[in-house]
């Protein structure tokens, strides 16, 4: 019968397509939202950590501070949706056209088990130094360490 043919020719494939399409669409929507949420949370934590590091640097850089060390436990979450995150940084010098120089600390954070990364930049002065270290969010002793030496240089690092 022709109508039965139409029914089977059109509707069955549509039905089978729906079996695959609906979960795929739902998964895509939810993944997009979850990824977006995690990415935002990671950016927020990264930006806040960068801001803390810059404030620590400029506090120590003040002429009234001769030498000393400051440790700050940052108020960022231990986990982002049950995933810890880690951070690394590199320091580079920037010289502008007028020969005024400063340093930029590029900090890259990675959310474990997801592959989401984000980078934040912190502008520091010429006397800033960076000690290679890794920020582990779920470590019990995680902190930011800034140490000023008598020659005026300030060494920043992740602690814990």
């Amino acid at each position, binding site marked *: 019968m022709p109508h039965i043919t139409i029914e089977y020719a059109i509707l069955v494939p549509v039905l089978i397509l729906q079996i695959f399409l609906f979960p795929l669409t739902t998964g895509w929507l939810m993944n997009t939202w979850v990824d977006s949420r995690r990415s935002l949370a990671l950016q927020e934590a990264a930006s806040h950590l960068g801001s803390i590091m810059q404030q620590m640097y400029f506090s120590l850089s003040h*002429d009234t501070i*001769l030498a000393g060390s400051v440790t700050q436990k940052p108020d960022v979450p231990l986990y982002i949706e049950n995933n810890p995150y880690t951070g690394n940084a590199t320091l580079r010098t920037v010289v502008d056209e007028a020969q005024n120089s400063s340093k930029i600390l590029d900090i890259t954070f990675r959310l474990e088990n997801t592959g989401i990364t984000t980078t934040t930049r912190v502008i520091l002065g010429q006397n800033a130094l960076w000690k290679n270290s890794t920020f582990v969010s779920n470590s019990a002793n995680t902190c930011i360490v800034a140490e000023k030496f*008598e020659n005026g240089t300030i060494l920043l690092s992740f602690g814990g």
Partner: protein
Amino acid sequence: MMRTIEVLLVIIIITAAFIISSFFAVLPQPREVSPLNLRRLALTTLQTLDRDYDLSQIVFKPIDDPSWSELQIALAATLPPNVIYNLTVYEVSSDGAILYSPIKSISNAESLGIESEASSYLVASSNVTFNVVPEKIGEKGGGGTLYILNCSDANGWWITGYTAQSLAQDLYNLLSPYFQITIMIQNTAQLAQVLNGTALQNEVLQNAVIINTFGEAVPIPSGYYATQGNDSQHASYAKYCYILGQKVRYFNWTWVSIVGYPLYYVSNMGLFTGPNDQNTWGIYGMKLVGPAGLNAFLDGLDDKEYGNWWWDRSDNVWKYDNDWITGDLDDDPRLASVQLSSEALYYCNYYGIYPSFYHTATRALPSWINSTYHLNVTSYILNTVDGWIPGAVYRHYSPSDSNFTGALFALGLTRTPDIRLTALGILSDYKPRLYRSEYTAYGTSRFVVLQLGLVGGI
């Protein structure tokens, strides 16, 4: 038909699911999403109110003192109208279980609601000593000694109205907080000891500052320095000034001349006892050196050879180098008054030393001495005028290296000296920091907590 009805049923079910999920998926209020950082606002409000220690003073007053209402007025004026606050002051005690006991509370609302944030601020009573502790010059290494010539066996000139000893005491009061150690050189014998490189009180001789409070005269020790320093061929003690310049270079001292023509006379009341041993103005115990003193000093500072004398036939006298090198800015009415430099004006406020803006410079040094004697001006105390430098710190450098080796701080002003300028000049050059320090003691601390909330809006 059935298919269509089934689809309609499906649509109804999904719509119901959407409505139910929308009911639970309530979006937060914009104020919750994007809140003010009330904690920081509270902290900065407390800091602003304590700008001049007003908050610190008020919280220690009796609870019925009218100052509390002033504090409430200031708090209300500082915060935006939609911010409600509760400021509570606690007594800090350590004698029992209760650490913080509330004393007084100021608020503009009965309750701050469910959501509020607070910041705390610890203040010390004004009964507690507040000190401004200056950074000690030399505490980071290298120097830190201040010598003030207070020789009882020498006389000064162009310090009329003062004695060298009174000037020395005033300088001691002004400057000793800024140095690791301040030593009054009590007589020329002690001066000789220092010139020989022997410490008087285990101080560090290197990099010291030596202030000559004797004006245009400089004390000369008897013995070696009087002998070696006497150029008998030219009947002058310019050789002593040359030796002084060498010592200044060797020990990297800063030699300070507080007024007039530096090193114009030498003085030792025990050595110069003759009737003609006076400066022709009635001050005895002195010998005239004249312009040769400064020229020889600069030669010694720059490690040049001593002895560039020449006979002036018209004046029938021996003269040294360029002879008279200072300028009398008083000759030109336009230049008569010299002014404090902008750097000095800035440090007036910082160190709280306020000499007059205007001065008369009759012994200003010429700027060409910088190139001739390898000097670098590190601080101008008074503005330069037409190539003349009325007051500055000149540091000597060797052409072969970048280190400074000796310095001269000369104030070429007319009498009488204003030692506030001397103090200001030294501090402007060394720039020691001032640190505020607080001492806390039992019963002298209070804890202020400012709690803030928001009303109105969405």
